[in-house]
């Protein structure tokens, strides 16, 4: 069975996001002064072959912890969309 997942990697709260700051300033310049905070993260799509949903959930969390996110500065969230 094919399992499809979306993984969101975001900077932990309190970790400075220079890209987010630059984008926020740019949105202010574009006439959106109401923008208070911008945080930029990563979005990763993964497809897994021949796996049940429960095992996929566990392994995707492992993959995120080991490689996809750096736990020192980032959090992650795994969302299984199909399978």
């Amino acid at each position, binding site marked *: 069975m094919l399992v499809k997942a979306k993984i969101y990697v975001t900077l932990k709260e309190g*970790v*400075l*996001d*220079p*890209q987010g700051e630059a984008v926020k300033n740019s949105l202010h310049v574009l006439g959106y002064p109401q923008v208070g905070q911008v945080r930029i993260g990563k979005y990763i799509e993964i497809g897994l072959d021949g796996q049940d949903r429960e095992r996929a959930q566990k392994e995707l969390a492992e993959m995120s912890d080991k*490689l*996809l996110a*750096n736990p*020192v*500065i980032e959090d992650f969230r795994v969302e299984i969309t199909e399978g």
Partner: protein
Amino acid sequence: MRVGVVVFPGSNCDADCYHVIRDVLLEDVEYIWHQEKEIKGFDALILPGGFSYGDYLRTGAIARFSPVMPAVVDFAQRGGLVIGICNGFQILLEVGLLPGAMLRNRSLKFICEPVWLKVKQSSTPFTNQIPESELLQIPIAHGEGNYYCDPQTLAELQQEGRILFTYCGPNGEESDSFNPNGSLANIAAITNKEGNVLGMMPHPERCSEAVLGGSDGVKIFASMMKWCQEVKF
């Protein structure tokens, strides 16, 4: 001293490091390809700068899983000297030999310029040939050198004297205006608890001969050489 320069796909300062060890210090040096699984007969390892694996995902994130890395970690844990320069520092952070992580420079710019460094500890394997508080001028060249760690780790680094170099002004001013990338506490280089693993963002291999406009960098490699002569691990 026999030095191994670890080469990853995308390393680009490996030849400079090799040249300094062989032609300036006149010591033995060999490249170690990232596919090697054993590291034998070396006194020190250099993880050079560059863009290993194209900096994909995060700097150093993929190199950290190279086949050679378990041997590098083992070498470090047995007390061998390991210096990670720029991308090498980023790899040491990802593999967990050093604490913390790198964020994008706060200016979002790739910065390539000489900076002043204050030597915070002089009795280490990497600085024993440099008097304490001496200033070094060494170039940086990075887009992600904004050192970050949690407050508890920062306190430990400070209390244990593990911050070896900080960014400063030409008169040793350690202020925010002389912090090129936004690093916490102006940190340019840190060591592990044991003191045998150093990570630094500036490139000492790029200023180890007068012909290159400065030779402050060679003092770090010469310190390693001195340490290896006196202490065989």
